[in-house]
């Protein structure tokens, strides 16, 4: 056991020794100060987190005339019937689990604890999961039919819920502190990594009925990913010196094997190519091709290569991911002389790059990014200011979303 392992086990008590919890000497002053401040009425903060078109419109106090109401009702019924027929005809058309798809709704968690949807074309917004609950972290299945989200319970435990794409049928799936989860290709299962004392076990949960099957892996798991086109799970681990290793195991728990060729200096999470044959990841280490470099690994052959793009020299590049068509990579490029970082899209074989979005400060955790399903745009939440943007690769004007903060996900639809 390394020194860090020993300390990690005692972290809460050691922190309590470092900063003893005593009532601070400024407490009485603080109360005197708050006692002089008037409270803000509840309605005053209603629009703080919600855009205006989501806030309920005032209801007219005048009674509506009967005839227009009937016409409205009939019209509504006709539209509903039409929508139902259309939905029925579309039900069987699902996107392929990997590769380009049509852009659907962007679903976001508002800072008010709701899950909301934005149509990126029209800008129309709607609340999918509302009410007094505190919900966050939406994540669509690859067929775009369901999304998972975290519901914080009164015990401050994050339970994982699943809902239909329109927010209906929400139900609890996993009631436990889950560190990580990922959808299977077909959206019928999820792999979850739980945090338990001294370990991080993984399980497969069936979405239909919540049945849990432990995944018999020995190593303490950091994160887990479903391998496209294979019924396999990739999981990442950290060794005693913080060195990374990636493993594959069948979803039924058999045939665990270490992936050969992965640099021990791998950082960030690896991302699969659409056919599951390659991994892209970044390294941070000492030596040629290791400091802030992007690598692509062929899983079957174990051949790993560090990539250089136009302008790579003198920069550090991290957090890569494949575009839906597998031809490009999106990553963060950290500029020299503390010049901040930019998002960059480049061909997988190297060469000229396209920078998107503005420069942001280096001293944060970068940006949470995701390609649009059709690969023409990037959804980016910048950590330094918390803003969420849709950035186009063709250079057209960026679009800022009205919400940010609790996670975003982009729905995939059949072309």
């Amino acid at each position: 056991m390394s020194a860090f392992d020993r300390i990690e086990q005692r972290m809460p008590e050691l922190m309590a020794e470092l900063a003893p919890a005593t009532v601070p000497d400024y407490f009485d002053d603080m109360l005197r100060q708050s006692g002089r401040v008037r409270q803000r009425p509840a309605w005053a903060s209603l629009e703080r987190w919600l855009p205006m078109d989501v806030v309920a419109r005032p209801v007219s106090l005048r009674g509506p005339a009967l005839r227009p109401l009937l016409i409205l009702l009939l019209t509504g019924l006709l539209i509903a019937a039409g929508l139902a027929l259309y939905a029925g005809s579309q039900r069987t058309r699902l996107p392929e689990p990997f590769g380009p798809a049509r852009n659907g709704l962007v679903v976001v968690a508002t800072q008010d604890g709701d899950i909301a949807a934005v149509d990126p074309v029209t800008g129309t917004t709607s609340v999918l999961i509302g009410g007094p609950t505190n919900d966050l972290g939406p994540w669509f299945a690859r067929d775009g039919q369901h999304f998972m989200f975290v519901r914080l319970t009164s015990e401050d435990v994050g339970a994982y819920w699943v809902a239909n794409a329109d927010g209906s049928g929400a139900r609890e799936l996993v009631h436990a502190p889950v560190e990580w989860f990922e959808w299977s290709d077909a959206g019928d299962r999820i792999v979850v990594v739980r945090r338990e004392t001294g370990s991080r076990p993984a399980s497969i949960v069936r979405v239909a009925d919540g049945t849990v099957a432990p995944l018999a892996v020995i190593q303490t798991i950091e994160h887990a990913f479903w391998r496209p086109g294979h019924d396999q799970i990739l999981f990442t681990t950290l060794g005693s010196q913080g060195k990374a290793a990636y493993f594959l195991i069948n979803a039924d728990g058999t045939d665990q094997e270490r992936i050969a060729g992965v640099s021990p200096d791998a950082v960030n999470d690896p991302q699969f190519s659409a056919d599951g044959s390659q991994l892209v990841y970044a390294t941070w280490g000492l030596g040629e091709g290791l400091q802030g470099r992007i690598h692509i690994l062929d899983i079957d052959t174990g051949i790993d290569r560090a990539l250089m793009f136009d302008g790579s020299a003198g920069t550090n590049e991290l957090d890569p991911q494949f575009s839906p068509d597998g031809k490009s990579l999106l990553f963060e490029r950290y500029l020299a002389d503390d010049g901040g970082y930019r998002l960059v899209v480049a061909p997988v074989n190297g060469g000229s790059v396209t920078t998107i979005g503005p420069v942001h400060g280096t001293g944060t955790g970068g940006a949470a990014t995701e390609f649009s399903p059709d690969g023409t745009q990037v959804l980016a939440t910048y950590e330094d200011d918390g803003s969420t943007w849709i950035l186009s690769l063709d250079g057209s004007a960026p679009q800022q979303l009205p919400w940010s903060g609790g996670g975003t996900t982009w729905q995939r639809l059949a072309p």
Partner: protein
Amino acid sequence: MDQRELVERARRGDHDAFAALAGAFVARLDAAARLILRDHELARDAVQEGFLAAWRNLPSLRDPDRFEAWLHRLVFRSCIDVIRRRSRRPMEVELLSVDAPVVADIASVIADRDLLDAALKRLQPEQRAVVVMHYYLGMPLPDVASALGIPIGTAKSRHHRSLKAMRSAIDGDLTPPRPPVAGEQYA
């Protein structure tokens, strides 16, 4: 009187009820803020701002049972605000070069507490916030994400990078989790 009743009364403007609530939480939140900000004065500013915001905005709290999580969110966002304000002036905490591992020689006489203290110093404040909230306050990562107003994936990523940086610091590994561009050091 239970906490829910205190919250209900405080929402209706009862400052004594708010004082009772504040007294129940201020010690741990002050300690957590000191761990994150590494500075007593800054921690005081952040905690005071957070509690003041809590009193002002209590009427808008929809679910009284969520008071504690909501208070955490306000205080830790104040910490982040303090960090951002502070970033415009010189850092007051000790800076350690990434080329100088904290533990060149892990002597048994060095207490684990001091090792942890040194490792925490090497984290950026945003990373420390995730570590302190997760380990010291026992908050699950989804709650940490909610409290800090960041995506859950970001919280996971920060947690992962923070532990790796701390492991490097404590076990003497030279590999940092973030790319130090020229001239950058880790606080």
